[in-house]
Each structure stands twice: as structure tokens, then as C-alpha cells.
């Protein structure tokens, strides 16, 4: 397929990502933002594919969409009763927020485009990286990998502990 189609697909996904992200941020309703976050994640996953990191894309979908998003949704369920009319989380200092955000984005973009254009290196990743990920994980990133797994374990246990039904409070 030619460059044009790739470009078009890319722009579509980019648009999806950005717009849904924007919806996540600006929607008054937490439920809506949670669901639109789903689309953001998908979009980002797609972008990963463009970056020829298919494994990461899959992980993204599995972990985020399958895990984090569900968690978030549960959080929403726990903390707001759906029935309650106003789920809208009102906002804190809106104006400065927007201003700062825009300035931030503008500043960053400006930096990107002014500080010399990025020249792609001579060799680029192509095709699937799954195999090399496996190699890296088992060789160079052995220690960080284990660490991260431990961290994850601890975090999950901790989360379970924190969120568990506390008898002491009910007594």
C-alpha cells in the first residue's frame, strides 16, 4: 500500500486519539470520559503499531483496555452512584489551567520545530520486535524486568490491602 494510504490511516488514528483524549479531559461526566479513554487507548495502540512496536501495542490493549480501564470504571462505579444526577466533577482554576496547558503545548511544539529537525538514524526498527524484546528481557534488562515484576506484585497486594473491606471502620 502506498504512502498516501498509510498517511491517511495514521491521521485517522491520530485524530481518534487526540479527540477522544480531549473528550476524556473535558467531559463533565466521569463515565463518558472513562469510556472515551477506551478510544484513546486504542488509538495510542494503533500509533504504536505505526511505530513498528506491535508487541507493545498488544500489551497496551491488554493491559490498559483490559486492566486499567476496567479498574478505572470500577473506581467510577464505587465512587459515584450512577443514579446520582450530577456525576459532573467540577473543575478547579479552569482559566489558568487552560492557559498553562496551551502555553505548554505551544512551547513544546515550538521547541520541537525550532531545535533542529529530527533526522532519522541510519538504521531503523522494522518489522516485529517481539523476538528482540524477548532477548533483551532475558539478557540486558533481566534485573529491571524482575524488579518491575516485583513492584507490580507488591503494588497489587498493596492495592488489595488498601481497598479491602475494613472491619475496623465498620465496628
Amino acid at each position, binding site marked *: 500500500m502506498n504512502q498516501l494510504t498509510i498517511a491517511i490511516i495514521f491521521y485517522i488514528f491520530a485524530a481518534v486519539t487526540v479527540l477522544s483524549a480531549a473528550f476524556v479531559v473535558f467531559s463533565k461526566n466521569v463515565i463518558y470520559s472513562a469510556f472515551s479513554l477506551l478510544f484513546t487507548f486504542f488509538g495510542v495502540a494503533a500509533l504504536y503499531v505505526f511505530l513498528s512496536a506491535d508487541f507493545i501495542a498488544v500489551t497496551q490493549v491488554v493491559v490498559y483496555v483490559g486492566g486499567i480501564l476496567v479498574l478505572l470504571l470500577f473506581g467510577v462505579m464505587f465512587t459515584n452512584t450512577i443514579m446520582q444526577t450530577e456525576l459532573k466533577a467540577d473543575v*478547579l*482554576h479552569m482559566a*489558568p*489551567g487552560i492557559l*498553562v*496547558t496551551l*502555553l*505548554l503545548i505551544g*512551547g513544546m511544539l*515550538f*521547541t520541537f520545530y*525550532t531545535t533542529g529537525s529530527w533526522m532519522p538514524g541510519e538504521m531503523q526498527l522494522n518489522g516485529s520486535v517481539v523476538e528482540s524484546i524477548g532477548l533483551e528481557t532475558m539478557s540486558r534488562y533481566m534485573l529491571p524486568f524482575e524488579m518491575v515484576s516485583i513492584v507490580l506484585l507488591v503494588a497489587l497486594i498493596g492495592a488489595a490491602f488498601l481497598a479491602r473491606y475494613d472491619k475496623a471502620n465498620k465496628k
Partner: protein
Amino acid sequence: MMHSLIQLSIAVLLLPLLSFVVLIFFNRRLPRGGDFVGVGLLGTTLAIALYIFWTVIVQHYDPAFRVAWDFTWLDFGDVPGVGPLQIKMGIVVDNLTAIMLAMVSLISFLVHLYSTGYMHGEPLYGRFFAYLGIFTFSMFGIVLSDNLFSIYMFWELVGLSSYLLIGFYFHKDSAADAQKKAFLTNRIGDIGMWLGILILYSQFHTFGYQEIFEHIKNGDFHMSQTWLTAAGVLLFMGCVGKSAQFPLHVWLPDAMEGPTPVSALIHAATMVAAGVYFVARIFVMLTPDALHVIAFIGAFTAFMAATIAITQHDIKRVLAYSTVSQLGYMVLGLGVGAYSAALFHLLTHAFFKACLFLGSGAIIHAMHHEQDMRWMGGLYKKMPWTFATFMIATLALAGLPLTSGFLSKDAILAGALGFASVEGGGVFYLIPVLGFGAAVLTAFYMGRQIWLVFFGESRTHLKPNAAHSLDDHSDGDVDHIHDAHHGGHDHHPVHEVAWNMRLPLVVLATLSVFIVFSPDPLDGGKGWFMHLVQTPATVVSVTGTSHESAGLGAPEAGKLLATAHTDTEHVEAAPAQGHGAEAAHEAGEHHGPVFTDPRQAEIAHMTHENHYTAIKLSSIMIVIGIGMALIFYVFRIIDPDKTAQTIRPLYLYSFNKWYWDEIYDATVIKGSMLISKILAWFDANIVDGIVNGVATVFRKFAFFNGGVDKYVVDGLVNFTAFTVQTTGAVFRKIQTGKVQTYLLMVAVAVLGWFAFYFAHLVK
């Protein structure tokens, strides 16, 4: 080794303390509140004291008798610049001490006995006897102590017991006020006394009388003569406080809030006399100037109090003011150098005044706590014993011949005359004049009291609802008031008191008769007292030549003057050291020894000269006084109330006690009120709102202090804290505790960095 008399007097000192200790702790557990403990112990004390009296006065009949004993109380070790320094406590027993011991213990015992009747049924019955015990203890302490420090200690202890006893009915606010007033007024006097003690100590590093007098005589007093006078006057201030002399006399009448036996014991006979006793102790070191001050204060007090007494309605207040007046006589006597006469009056006055107070107590008791003389009257039929004793005592107080009071008062007045003539007349004649004036008034108000209380018809039914207004009983509305009251008091008939209240009256009345003190009804000088208590030679060298004058007793002086002096004195000197009635007679002529100090000798001489003048004058005065009393109250030739109307200003002036309380209010309180106003303005404008809602003036003034404390001094401290706090507050605004705000700031900072970066970039 200790003299047996010392041991006995220590026993006398400690027995009442024992009574206090036992009663204060166990009065509730003992039957009858343990009054028998108090009475019994005081009886023992009395017995011992009388034995001492017998030994000292009757056995060795010697003017110079003196035994002393002391022990080291505090040891300061080897003090730099002073050398070994010990503070000694000790006991001295001489004639005066023996007499005072006997007098105090006797009256105290009688009052104990009397109280068993008078105070019967009081809730704090037992504690009352405990207080009496500690009072008697401290009074003995004053009498026995041989140095200024211990006398000061007992002095304040007496103040304490007086405080406790005045406030015995502490649930009455008037009593609570009175006790506070008494203690504070006495404290003011004590300050002076204490400063005087300090002056003497700072020179000699000792508190003992003897050492101090020796030092002064040897001219070791290195400060100026003025300081010595100051020391004398300041020590006298103690007496001014205790003996209720002007200007500190205001507490004594209020002290009548205490139970009547207390008034008799403390505020008539013993404690108030302690001041006089103390001045007598330090008599020899008083400079002539100091003596002049003392004399004038005494004379003025005597007269002023007498004028007040003539218009009072409360039977106890009349007696209170007469006490003040009589104390004025004593102080006057000391001031004019009539040493023995003054002490003589102290003794006689103690007896008859105690008798009067106990009598009035009996009356009040019988009248169901009616104290206003206007509602009494006609009691002589109902209370013959009380009437008889009261009468005798009254005559003694008025100073009628054949009574003890006559002897002493006359001696004092003679001394005053002699003094005035020696000092070269002029203003000094004011003193005898005031004295005689007081004599008239005394006779008058006592006659008035006797009549109002004992004669005429019973006026109990006249008492209106609102008593104590000035002229509320004109004969017009008698029936009306009678109906209104319907014989309110008549249900309880007035009756004579029981034996235990009657006996003291009789004893004291007996002691008010001349024969006890002197064979000659006209001259106390012939009596044993004047012989045994003789004016000591001063140690103050006015001329600077009298250093060789030895000793305080007569005999040395007598020996000395064989070489020293003019023949008139020579003749009178010899008998001064002899014994027996003849010697007493001779010595009595001259009130003691002959002096090497010319001034004292002169005064003694002139006193002798003026003796019979004084007798004549005072007799006349008494007659006038009693005559006036008869005219006013008995024959009603002049209606007292109408007179009161005609001379109303004078009457009110006297009735309101010369407005002394008001004057003190006006000066002290209004003055500080002004100050506090100024300060309040200061506060309002400089230090904001310190003195808010303050009641009394002292508190206003003190509040200002508290305010300065709180706002200015404290303010400086807080200001530092404040600056820090405000800066902190500014930055605290940023610390909202909201992570998001922090994050916003982070972002802003990043932007700032961007700006910085781009600025570089643009160049």
C-alpha cells in the same frame, strides 16, 4: 544555767501554744469543743504567772530586778567584715515583764472563763478557744522577748491571731472586711517598725535591746543623729499600728466585729497595749525629737477619739473609741517622759477596760445581741451585778478619785504639765490641754453611757424597723412604733448572766480600786508599781556629755549622782534604792530615780512640782464632765437631741468619726482614681484598651501594671513572632494543600524556563 524564773516563764509562754495545738486539731473530737483544755491550761498559766509575780514583785522588791537568758538561734559563721555573727533569741524577766505576765494571763484566763458562757452554742466554739490560745502565746512572746527580731515575730503573730479572731464570724462580710483592714493597717505600721529595726541592725549587727542600748551609749551609732530619731519614730510606727494611734487608728473600731470577749482581751486590754509596752522597751533610745512626735500623736489621738466617742450609739464602739483615747493617754505619757505613769495606766486601764467590755458583753448577751444604746435603758434592776461592776469600771475610766484610773491618769497629766513647762511652754502646752480636754469628754461620754444603758425606762420597744438612722426616736410616734412592734423583744425577759460570766466582772472590778495599787487614793507614786517600774535613764546623748551615765536601773544612777549632782536631787536620790513603804513613798514623790541626763531630771522635777495642780485640774475636769452628762441625760435640763440639732455640723463631724475613713478614701482612692484615669487615657491612645471594666481603684492601678506587662513588654516579644508570622502567612496562601495547584505552579515554572530558553534562542 537557767534561772528557775526563766524556766517558769518559758512554761508560761508555751502552755497557751499547747492549748492552741491541741484545740485546733482536736476541738471537734473533744467533749464541749475542748473548752476545758483551754480554760485549764490558762488556769495553770495564770498560777505560774502569779507565782512569778509573787517572786519578782513581792519577794525581791527591787526596781533593778532583771534576769535574762538567751540561746543562739541562727549562726552565720564567720561573716566577712563582721566577724562571727550569731542571732540570739532570749527571754528577759524584770518587774515590768512580771507585771505584764500576771496581767495578761489573768485577763486571758478570765476571758476564757467568760467565753464558756458567752460563746456557748457557737458552731466553731472549740476553734475560738484555740485562737485565744495562740493569741495569748504570742502576747506572752511580746512581753518576754529580749530582742527586736523576736518581738517583731510575735508582733506579727499577734496580728495574725487578731486577724483570726476579728474574722471569727467570717461568713459576715463586715467581719471579713474588718479583719483584712486590721491586718493591713497593722502591716503598714509594721513596715515602719521593721525599717527602724533595720536601721539599728545595720549599725550594730545585733537585735538585742541590751547590746543596742550599750552600743548607742558608747556612741557606736555612726549615722547621723537624725537617723537615730528616725529609728525611734519608725519603731514607734509599730506602736501606732498596734495601739491604734492616729493616723492608723481606723482599724480598731471596726475590729469590734469580733466576738465581745475578743474585744475585751485583744482590743481593749492586752494587744493594743503591746504597742505601748514596746515603746516602753525602747524608751531609752528615743531622742527628744522622737519623744516630741510621740507625745503629740498621743495627745491628739486621746482627744480626737474622745470627741468621737461622745456621739456613738453602739455600746461597743463607744468603748472602742474610749480605748483609742486611753491608749493615746499612755503614748502621751511615754512621749512626755512619764514612763512609769504611762505603764501604770496601761495596767489599770487593762483591768477596768476589760471589765467594761465584758460587762457590755454581758449586756449584749442579755439583750439578745442588741448593741445600740438607744434601745437599752433601765437595766440596773435586771442586772445588778453587771451594773455594779460596770459602774466601778466606768468611774475608774472617768478617773474619779478612789479608783485606779485616777492614780494613773493623774500621774500622766502631771507628767504632761511638767514636760510642757520644761520644754518652755508654747505649743507644748497643747499636750496637757488636749489631755485634760480628753478627761472631760471621757467623764461625759461614760456618764452618758451609764445613763443610757442602766437608768431610765427600758426603750427596747422603741426600736424601729430601720434602726441606726440619726434621730429616729422623737416621743411623738412612740405608740405607733410600739404597735408596729407589738412588744417584739419583751417575750425574752432580760436577766442577769450566769456565774461564769459574772465572776470575771467581779474580779476585774475589784482590781479597779485604788487600794490595789497604792495606799494613797490621791497619789499613785506611793504605790508599789511606781516604785518597781521606774523611768530608765536615756542612752541618747543629746548634749554628748552623758556617756558615763550608767545602767537602766535606779541604784547605779543613785550611786552615780552622789558625786554628780545638785542637792535637791541628792536628797531625793538616797531612798530610791531603799525598800519598804517609806522608801516607796519617797521614791514615789519623784517617779523613780534621779537622772544624769539634765532633760530627764528636769522633767521629773517639774512633774513632781505639778503633781497637785494636776490632781486639782483633773478632778475639776471630771466633775465638769459628769456634770454635763447629768445635765444632758439625767435631769434633761438640756435635751441632747435638740442640742445635736443646734450644733448639727459638729455633731455630725463627731458622729462620722471626723470622717477619717472618708478622708482616706478621698485621698488615697480618689487620688489614684485620677492617676488611673490619666493612665486609662494613656492606654486608650497608646496601648489600646488595657484597663477595661475594673472595679476598685487599686485594681485599676494594678490593672495598668498588668496591662503594661501584657501589652508593652509582652508586645515586644510578640512583635518578633508577629513579623515572622505575617511573612509566613503570605507564603502560606500558596500552600493550599491541593496537589493540583502545586502542579499548576510546576507547569508555570516550566513555562518560565521555556521563556528563558526562547529568549536565548531568539538571540
